[in-house]
């Protein structure tokens, strides 16, 4: 089944999937990991995060791994599904090809020092 998700993924969605590729995370953990992965550039807020998670769960890219109750508060852990892994791999490959193309065009302009 083709996941019901628009590609290319928007950056917050890409970063959420990337964060979950490491291990299952709960809301606060996801926000902190996305912040770290983006170098502090993408600061998700809970309302935005849970909206994105709802869409990703609906699309089958993310699922609930487990739940805990900490200090009387519910904490859900989310994990990347197989479809989510496939979409993330596809997006990463698309971006890698773009980076390679841009790097090849920039090298003559910026010299061999360009990575």
């Amino acid at each position, binding site marked *: 089944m083709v996941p019901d998700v628009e590609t290319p993924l928007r950056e917050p969605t890409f970063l959420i999937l990337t964060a979950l590729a490491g291990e299952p995370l709960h809301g*606060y953990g996801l*926000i902190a990991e996305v912040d770290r992965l983006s170098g502090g550039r993408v600061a998700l807020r*809970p309302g935005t995060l849970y909206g994105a998670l709802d869409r990703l769960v609906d699309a089958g890219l993310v699922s609930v791994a487990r739940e805990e109750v900490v200090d009387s508060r519910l904490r859900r852990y989310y994990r990347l599904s197989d479809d989510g892994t496939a979409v993330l791999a596809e997006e990463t490959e698309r971006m890698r090809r773009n980076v390679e193309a841009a790097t090849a065009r920039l090298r003559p302009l910026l010299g061999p020092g360009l990575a």
Partner: protein
Amino acid sequence: MNDLERRYHRLIRLFYPAAYRHERASEIVGTYLDLTTPGQRRPSPADVADLAAGGLRQRLRTAGAAGLGAAMPLAAMLALPTATMIAAAGLMVELIPVIDDIGPARRGAIAPLGIGVWAAWVLVAVAHLVAPSRWTRRAIGAALALTATVIPVSAIIGEPRPPLFTLVPQLALGLVALGIPARPLRLLPLAGVAVGIPASGLLFPTGFYYGYGADALSCAAVILLAAAVLLLVLRNDFRALWALLTLLGPIGLLSLHPLSRAAGYRNPTVASLAVTALAVTLTTSALLLITLTARERSTRHLHAGPLPPQRAET
């Protein structure tokens, strides 16, 4: 529960639908509390804005799950030919010279605003027939912008324009028509034009918008209502019900004159028509919202968020 936690819960109650907050409020509030700084006593303005936006997204998602989004193409396929039919009739009124004994003969050339507005809607039908489907929505958007713009422009430059009781329902029909699907029956809007040209003699028999015209527009409303009810009977599903409820607004606005008279205004004025239009818009919107809420409650378990797979106390 401390004051800060209570305040976050209050905001979630304010912004989110009941079914969703029943399932997720504790999780969302927990995440906010994890992010709070020491000594923080109130949600920040950014938190309030974030919750307001999140709640709105969730309400739209709930409406989509209830089938409202899927109903929009159905409503649009009835609204667009109605709009092009009225536009074609209006164009005929503007273009065909009228000679009477109560004023100077009018010619189309002296009413460019009316010609421009109605021609824009006729062009929507042409675009839908011949251009790639993405152009239909762009043409509808342009016609909507022109229809809305012509009202202040007419006041500024002093040129006559079609009366508001034709422009307001046209705007409502156009907004619903924006939901037109990518490749529906391509001839449908043009069929509206084809019906509208001869129908102008029935809709506006004096050649003016006023007189019979004001009431005759409600004939278009009755036809649209009958088509939407027929669709509901044939399909017997929620998509057709949402389409009918969505179309009630434009149908009511097409019937401003008879509704205004029914409300007690013997000779409707601009003010009485404006009050009636506002009442129609509020009533039909409230009816749609109440039905959506009732539907949401009846299917709460279907779209209340992800189902919990396992639970562990720590």
